[in-house]
């Protein structure tokens, strides 16, 4: 009976794993089938073109995403590492409890709400959409995730190492900088890449902030295109030509996230 239950449970878990893998395989298959045909040199070096020109690419969206995501990551990493450190060093402080609750709440907030908040706080006060506003909206999505993850990472620092540093006569600040942060370097890098993978595909926060742009724009103070935004614009259009570009864009985004995951795997090994 025990063996039978074991076999049944094994078969059930395998079935579940297989069905999840089938969904993933289907998505990948569909993306490759419809997207690969449109990925060519023009896709990378041309900006959006009007319908009927039978060309046009994602250049403005790729560059826009790079700029918006980079600014967002700078904001996310700097604030989250500090926030995570505060939670780790002063876990009993009232501010820590408030911060932790706020981060948990923000983590569950729909991303479009982050976009609307930034629209009211930044876009309206600036008077126009901008890549910078998009970065802030993405940062709002990424920060709670990374603050809570950083706190967990800092907690993993072995107390033996922390005590060894204190026994050498080091102050708390130096122990944080030289032991906790150095020990957490690789996990923090890994979690940053995960956060980047998470925000890179976000569309909703960019709708009311970065807004999108059909032309190449390098100034983050102005409306900018971004990969997910461009995919959204192409996908909701009635034109087959733009649909193909949307599939290609989605495929590129998936490739980007996959590459990040591979790098992440390497960092994980380095961390160990």
């Amino acid at each position, binding site marked *: 009976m025990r063996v039978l239950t074991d076999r049944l449970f094994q078969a059930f878990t395998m079935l579940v794993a297989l069905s999840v893998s089938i969904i993933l395989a289907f998505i990948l298959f569909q993306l490759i089938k419809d997207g690969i045909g449109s990925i060519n040199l023009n896709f990378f070096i041309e900006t959006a073109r009007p319908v009927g020109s039978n060309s046009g690419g994602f250049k403005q969206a790729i560059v826009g995403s790079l700029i918006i995501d980079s600014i967002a990551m700078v904001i996310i990493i700097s604030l989250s590492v500090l926030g995570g450190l505060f939670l780790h060093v002063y876990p*009993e402080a009232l501010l820590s409890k408030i911060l932790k609750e706020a981060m948990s709440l923000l983590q569950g907030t729909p991303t479009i709400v982050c976009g609307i908040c930034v629209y009211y706080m930044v876009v309206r006060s600036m008077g126009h959409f901008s890549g910078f506003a998009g970065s802030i909206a993405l940062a709002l999505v990424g920060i709670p995730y990374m603050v809570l993850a950083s706190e967990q990472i800092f907690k993993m620092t*072995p107390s*033996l*190492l922390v*005590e*060894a*540093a*204190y*026994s*050498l*006569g*080091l*102050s708390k600040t*130096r122990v944080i900088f*030289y*032991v906790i942060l*150095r*020990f957490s*370097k690789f996990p923090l890098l890994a979690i940053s890449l995960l956060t980047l993978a998470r925000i890179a595909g976000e569309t909703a926060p960019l709708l009311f902030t970065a807004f999108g742009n059909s032309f190449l724009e390098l100034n983050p103070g102005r409306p900018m295109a971004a990969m997910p935004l461009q995919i959204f614009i192409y996908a909701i259009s009635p034109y087959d030509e733009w649909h193909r570009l949307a599939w290609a864009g989605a495929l590129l985004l998936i490739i980007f996230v996959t590459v990040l995951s591979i790098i992440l795997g390497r960092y994980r090994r380095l961390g160990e």
Partner: protein
Amino acid sequence: MIKMKLQDVHAFFGKNEVLKSINLDIYDKAVTSIIGPSGCGKTTLLRCLNRMHELDKNASIKGRILLDNEDIFKMDLYKVRRKVGMVFQSPNPFPFMSIQDNVLAGFLMSGKRLSKNQKEEICEKNLRRVALWEESKDRLRNLPTNLSGGQQQRLCIARALANDPEIILMDEPTSALDPISTSKIEELIIGLKNEIVIVIVTHNMQQAARISDFTSFMYLGNLIEYGVTEQIFKVPKEKLTEDYITGRFG
């Protein structure tokens, strides 16, 4: 000459009193061992000597501990810990630093600038003091994770020595090591006692008898007996000490 003097020291974790009125003199150029059954307060006593006990948020200490007649609770905390170094139960070199940087950790982490020559000199001197130079001189830039447990522990002693302390506290430094590594550390302790004061907590009574000049026996947070090692092991004054040494309880 008395190097460190404990006067009516009480230590607490919250309201729980784990050390009860300890009075103890630690002599210069000698090895003092602290023995006793598990949970008797040996490690807490050791951690009071360089104020590591205070790292625990619920911990507190009462009484006076004098280092060269100066109360360590009135001294700068970091200065106390630089003067009274510590080696832990499990080897704990910093895994993200090279062997050389581990030896120099006290300098590098406190922001002291050293020339390349000074670095090499301090590193060689201290690795020689712990008899690790010959084994590691060709891989000073490597991470310490490739060293054996015994070598890592000697590296930790070198790290503590490089900080130029006056006293080194050792909390069961050989409990995680094999017999050969243990004997090397013991030789090292005997060799170092002319330069530095060593206080060692050990579970191993033979070890205490082999390497220490003075032995203190603790039981349930009380210092039951303290004296010259030979006297403690041969003619203990207290019945409890005799029972512990002869293995009637432990």
